């Protein structure tokens, strides 16, 4: 099963402060463990939302809004893509995530399962394919 583990933004990450040397080493060791175990497929950290933009679709109207965005805790700051046997295994790996917020402030990692071929398989009928296309059309605002 493939999972995306999403890390959330902090005031520091949104301010564009690079991680401390210590944090860099700690996280490096953790990533190394994931790689050594053959679990990690990909991982990236994201620049502050000030470097990004959002595109809003509303009816026929398309609006582009440049960052930064204010709701820091809801922003994505990075992701890990892993392949594990189960959600529990993914949870067990990331319970070991070594970085904590300064001053012990609350934080969270979000774990989401990635859709894969076997999730459709035989059940993925022509009608469902149409439904997906309809959904995609909805997302595109048509």
């Amino acid at each position, binding site marked *: 099963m493939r999972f995306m583990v999403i890390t959330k933004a902090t005031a520091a990450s949104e301010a564009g402060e690079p991680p401390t040397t210590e944090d860099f080493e700690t996280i490096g060791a953790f990533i190394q463990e994931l790689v050594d*175990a053959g679990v990690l497929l990909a991982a990236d950290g994201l620049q502050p939302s000030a470097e990004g933009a959002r595109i809003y679709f509303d009816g026929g109207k398309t609006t582009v809004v440049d960052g930064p965005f204010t709701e820091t805790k809801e922003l994505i700051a990075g992701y890990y*893509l892993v392949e594990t046997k189960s959600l529990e295994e993914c949870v*067990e790996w990331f319970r070991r995530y070594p970085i904590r917020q300064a001053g012990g402030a609350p934080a969270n990692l979000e774990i989401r399962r990635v859709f894969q071929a076997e999730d459709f398989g035989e059940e993925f009928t022509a009608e469902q394919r149409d439904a997906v296309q309809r959904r995609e059309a909805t997302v595109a605002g048509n």
Partner: protein
Amino acid sequence: MPTDTHRAIEAVWRIEAPRLIAGLARLVRDVGVAEELAQDALVAALEQWPAEGVPDNPGAWLTTTARRRAIDRIRREQTFRRKVEEAGRELEESSPDIGALVAEDDGIGDDLLRLVFVACHPVLPTPARTALTLRLLGGLTTDEIARAFLVPEPTVAQRIVRAKRTLAQARVPFEVPRGAELTARLSSVLEVVYLIFNEGYAATAGDDWMRPELCADALRLGRVLARLAPREPEVHGLVALMEIQASRTAARTGPGGEPILLAEQNRARWDQLLIRRGLAALRRAEDLIEGDPGPYVLQAAIAAGHARARRFADTDWVRIARLYEHLARVAPSPVVELNRAVALSMAYGPEAGLALLDQLTAFPVLRDYHLLPSVRGDLLAQLGRHAEARAEFVRAAALTRNERERTLLLARAAAPPEPAPGHP
């Protein structure tokens, strides 16, 4: 017992079992005993964690528990040996170093690599090697292995028990082979991993989900191996081959589970992440090669040739035919020759492929192999030799064990001749 804790323990086991067993095997110098000690620690966890909760560092908890039992066991044996010595007997084998218990997990990677080589030791029959590898290094239960290989659970359990006994009786040392032996032993390891992968790849729609899951197990083992033996090009070659083959999973069967040939696959459904990982692994392999590439690197290069082609028509068949020629020299096999014939026909036209196929009919292994007449029929039809083509399709239909394929072949045998596109 709360199911949540039980599942958390299973997950911890999956993560920790290989390192735990490898570390213990270094202490007790017996993979079977190490596995039993690890199992004892797991049982202790199953007893204590549901009540006390999963500890913050579950790996350390398991290691400490298992090591304590290992020490008890070694002490018992040493006491026994002393008594034997006192009785005036000679003690030939050296006792395990109890001082090593004090040393922490230094060189756990080396222990894992030793464990891989022992689990895939040539003294064991192949089914035992695969079962032991999945059990010790994949963290699978005997039940999971049994379901994946479509055999009864007691059969797998017995295979593992026998394998452990064989290893102990043969006094297989817990070490990484050196020098000339390394190449042969490494190829045994790679063979086991690729065998596990192919077992999963051959699974069909109705099968237990444990079967296709074997592909993921093999890939994980391969990636681990690439970290343990980073200087071995063939290890990276095997990883590349598996990553690229796994990238086609979504495209290689239709909605009803019927196989879809490479030529007809919807390449938009290929997993680009796995392709990128595969191509990167292949580059690592090629950077390490001194002299001739081995069979896994060559097969990976062929798979990469397909992965790079956005459409089937874009395939560089000249290059692929050359790679097959190389592969046929390094790892000669009639099936490789058959593939080479197809590549030659795609690169240079049906006559080129047919010329090679006609030499292959001499191989006894291929006499009952349905793909030989099937491919031959295909090439003959392209050349307009329809009567001969029909005869080949009928022969292929009689040889195949796949019902769907038989229907298809008989339909081709019955079809009126049509001009072959591209080969007027």
